[in-house]
């Protein structure tokens, strides 16, 4: 890894363009940047959601993300990674999470971003609580997310 790694957990929103520029500024060796933004939906399984509240495990969340960034950088030739995860109350249309990967070529950047996102969903200690007209309740984990993460362990 020849570039910066940034991992931030914050209540405030982030600016995607600003974060991408931060990874590539002053560099001429990066040929590909992939960014993934996770955004709060206004409905889940046809039920209207008024807000999500994200809880996390301070300390472990940063360390767990860091372990997956280390694994990503050992698997792909990356030149920079930025991961931002918001916590607190988030309303539909707002950003929740950002993953930015930079590399010389697009395949590494695409694959590493997908790998990091799959593991963020299944192994980083964050939990979502939904608010709707029916009340509030914790979001249940989806088997499809476990399956998405598991494919990276297959040869």
């Amino acid at each position, binding site marked *: 890894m020849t570039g910066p790694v940034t991992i931030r957990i914050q209540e405030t929103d982030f600016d995607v363009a600003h974060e991408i520029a931060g990874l590539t500024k002053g560099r001429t060796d990066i040929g590909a940047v992939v960014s993934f933004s*996770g955004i709060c939906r206004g409905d889940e399984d046809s039920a209207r959601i008024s807000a999500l509240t994200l809880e996390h495990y301070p300390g472990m969340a940063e*360390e767990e993300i860091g372990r997956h960034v280390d694994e990503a950088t050992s698997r792909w030739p990356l030149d920079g990674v930025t991961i931002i995860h918001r916590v607190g109350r988030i309303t539909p249309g707002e950003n929740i999470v950002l993953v930015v990967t930079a590399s010389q070529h697009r395949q590494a950047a695409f694959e590493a971003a997908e790998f990091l996102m799959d593991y963020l969903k299944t192994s980083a200690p964050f939990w979502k609580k939904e608010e709707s007209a029916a009340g509030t309740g914790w979001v*249940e984990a989806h088997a499809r997310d476990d399956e998405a993460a598991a494919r990276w362990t297959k040869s």
Partner: protein
Amino acid sequence: MKLKYFAWVRERIGTAEETVEPPASVRTVEELIAWLSGRSEAYAYAFEKPKVIRAAIDHAHVRPDAAIAGAREIAFFPPMTGG
């Protein structure tokens, strides 16, 4: 050792963290869950489906058969739903 609870595990138990001194016979994460479950109705409710509960020792995920000896901080929480 310090215990931490998150999401609905925290809500059911009614506290985010506490310090406990389990007996020496409690050696693994699953034995700790069983011991905690015997403390009160609230703990029994939080751990009613122990297979669903995830655990971490000193900020790293562990399996139910992981040894707890030497752990500074053990956390219990539901499957994660971030991202």
